[in-house]
């Protein structure tokens, strides 16, 4: 999780930042699902035998969250593509320098 955060902050490439966000999310999901684990339990599908089942509630939450996470990264990728169309680069430093240049020219 911290690795994902680290990638978001340190890399200059915007696509890599989106990937960092995805990693961050997935790490949180793994943590959530690990809370649902019961030792010697099985998956929460009811059978005729009496069993210990793992907790289905976090599973449901994470099912929802995974799909929402993909929607988020799709939106981020669309933003990156639009940035590339307008600036012809997706590196943060280069965009900053372009912005500075245009500001100077406009003043």
């Amino acid at each position, binding site marked *: 999780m911290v690795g994902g955060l680290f*990638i978001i902050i340190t890399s200059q490439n915007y696509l890599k930042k989106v990937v960092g966000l995805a990693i961050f999310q997935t790490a949180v999901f793994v943590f959530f699902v690990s809370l649902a684990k019961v030792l010697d339990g099985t998956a929460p599908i*009811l059978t005729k035998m009496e069993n210990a089942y793992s907790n289905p*509630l976090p599973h449901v939450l994470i099912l*929802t969250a995974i799909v929402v996470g993909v929607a988020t990264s799709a939106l981020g*990728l669309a933003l990156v593509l639009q940035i590339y169309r307008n600036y012809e680069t997706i590196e943060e430093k280069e965009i900053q320098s372009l912005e500075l*240049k245009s500001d100077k020219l406009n003043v």
Partner: protein
Amino acid sequence: MNFLLINFFLISLLLVTTFFIFKTTSLISVVALTGAFTLLCSAIYVNLDAVDVAFTEAAVGSGISTILMVMAAAKLPEGKKNKLINLFPSIILAVSISLILIIIIANLPLLGDPNAPIHLHVVPEYLKESKDFFHIPNVVTNILASYRGFDTLGETIVIFTAGLGVIALLTSNTLNRKTNFKKNNKKNER
């Protein structure tokens, strides 16, 4: 013990993958490594008895999102090897956050403890009743579609909104700063 060993192995693989995503500059290999990352995560979910989540992660997280990223990476230029920005503050931030997390995790109930508070409220009723109510053996499906149906409705709305946003972003021509930049650069050349 076997369970813990497998889990440890998979999580250390995850760490290695994250490190290589951090190191590589080529966009297409970053995307491929992300696919591998999510696939490893679905293996972890299977190990943690969350088969539904593993299925979704393999199909949606590892499938659809990798396809989307490959499509985006095909249109984008090759990544450049740049200096890392904000390196020092981000190291401090990462270390402090991981310390806080370790302290919190040390206070949580043990992994797989059947008497943890999370397993004692609401969930036993779901496990007991849902078969009689809905006649579906899979409790996750019952909760997703029936007990928490409104959550799923909200999720659908979120996806719809995100889809609208993607379409709006990819088809809009109003934000045309490119022409401005080109004009400015031409002025600069003169």
